[in-house]
């Protein structure tokens, strides 16, 4: 049993076309391969076996919201480098690269939107941006999304995909847990609503803060939702893990999520929740 346990990021985004790895459009469950437009047309769910491929933030927003209803907020925010962090490469370089490869300023996109004509605020994470890790800008954007929801009196819908806190910002990244929690508490005190959609993977610092505080929590099928990832648990305990360790299905059985919603039902389900929390409006 080790006392030196990583409880932060462990699921790093597989770089596209990385040497021995399968092509991102090849289904890891059944091996079927698709053109990008085929996958996109099927909401990035394998038509053959139902495997849910990851969805980038921009595409997720298009899937969920009414056409042209999304108005992005705080798009200009960029992370700085408070610690002058340098591992094998400087943090600033990693940031620049992530921005280049995703076209996003950070690992979360926020803004106002409508779903089946019901107004809401959205906060959608991008796993492709440094493993969806939460640094100060992700925390700040989530707080602003809470504030936007409060100001306009609409529910906040978050879609999470994150390996945890961003260790390149050191202890300041840990502080994003209480920061986002406090924002949810303020939202609640104003009578607001948080609908939490957990996509693959929602782990560590994001699972241990705002994502778990949804009034309602729904998960995508097969999503990994665990504080510590299976590899670290395996290495530490040396037990054989249950087959569905940490997956959405296990979380449902153990009482941590309200429902597992296939992607094709996600938009109508969120719309139904928006109707309920807008009290039939």
């Amino acid at each position, binding site marked *: 049993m080790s006392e030196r346990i990583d409880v932060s990021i462990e699921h790093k985004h597989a770089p596209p076309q990385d040497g021995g790895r399968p092509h991102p459009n090849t289904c890891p469950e059944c091996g079927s391969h698709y053109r990008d437009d085929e996958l996109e047309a099927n909401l990035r769910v394998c038509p053959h076996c139902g495997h849910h491929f990851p969805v980038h933030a921009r595409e997720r927003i298009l899937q969920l919201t009414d056409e042209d209803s999304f108005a992005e907020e705080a798009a200009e925010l960029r992370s700085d480098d408070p610690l002058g962090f*340098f591992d094998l490469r400087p943090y600033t370089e990693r940031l620049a690269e992530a921005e280049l490869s995703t076209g996003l300023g950070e690992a979360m996109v926020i803004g106002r939107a409508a779903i089946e004509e019901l107004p809401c605020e959205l906060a959608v994470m991008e796993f492709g941006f440094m493993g969806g890790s939460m640094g100060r800008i992700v925390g*700040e954007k989530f707080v602003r999304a809470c504030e936007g929801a409060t100001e306009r009196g609409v529910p906040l819908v978050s879609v999470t995909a994150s390996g945890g806190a961003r260790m390149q910002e050191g202890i300041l990244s*840990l502080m994003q847990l209480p920061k986002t*929690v406090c924002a949810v508490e303020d939202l609640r005190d104003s009578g607001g609503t948080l609908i939490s959609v957990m996509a693959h993977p929602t782990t560590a610092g994001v699972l241990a*803060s705002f994502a778990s505080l949804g009034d309602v929590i729904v998960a995508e099928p097969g999503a990994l939702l665990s*504080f510590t990832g299976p590899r670290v648990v395996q290495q530490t305990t040396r037990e054989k893990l249950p087959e569905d*360790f940490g997956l959405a299905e296990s979380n449902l059985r153990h009482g*941590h999520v309200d429902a597992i919603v296939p992607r094709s039902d996600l938009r109508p389900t969120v719309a139904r929740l928006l109707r309920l929390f807008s009290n039939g409006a």
Partner: protein
Amino acid sequence: MAREAELRLREQLSKLKSLPLLRGARLSGDLERLQRQLDRIVAEPSDEEIWHAVQLARHEDRPYTLDYVERLFEDWFELHGDRHHGDDAAVVAGLGRFRGATVVLVGNQKGRDVKERTRRNFGMAYPEGYGKAMRAMELADRHGFPLISLVDIPGAYPGVTAEQHGQGGAIARAQSLMARLRTPIVTCVIGEGGSGGAIATALADRVLMQENAIYTVISPEGCAAILWRDAGEARKAAAAFKPDAAHCLELGVIDAVVPEPEPGAHADYDEAARLLGEALGESLEIFEGVSGEDLRRQRRVRFRTIGQVSATR
């Protein structure tokens, strides 16, 4: 260290010198120790000094929560159990009289010998432990007792049942509860402040660190394993993410540093307890007379403004 950061640090230091927190140390003739501590903070700790703090924070003779409890509290009564499924020995909760007034304490607890270490799961809480802490917090809130939390946890426990019992959600809910409490909360990191396990009980009005404690988003070994792909590079990782008290103070993550006896708290439990007691007592004094509503509003503002990004890249 960037020039801007250095300026901020010097400003904080001059404030620090006049803080009531350190009065106890000064009055008792500990000026030398104080000066040493200040010197260390002024001079950016070297990579060696950071690693030394990591080692002291994990020192096997370092005082643990119950060592402080027995020295600082009268009429101690330990609370057990989460009222759901278990009593997690890695977390201690209880009521005691501190400087004459009843307070509720929650703290992480490591074991001293092999048997005790196993029983206390090396200080790593299970969800049942956060549950026990939350129950104690609710009791504090109901009765208006101040809450003291002592943090000393390597990290949340990476185990199957810990996940099945929902430790992510438990850590989130513990913070959520702390954000709602209407009673003063003071936290001190007294050893390892490891990741989610630490923050679960650290959403406080005032956060202190002992001189040789560390506060981290991930263990140096974990960070090294991921970023350097070699857990052996822990020293490099620690140097890079700066988990020591001086840096945490500089970054605005903590409010003050609690001095330790030389060469560290393990060398003199009584003196370490006395200094911790001074710091906790003076911290609680700050909040006397503040309404519950103001306390929790200010507490939330504190955490929503910590480490505000100063500029865009």
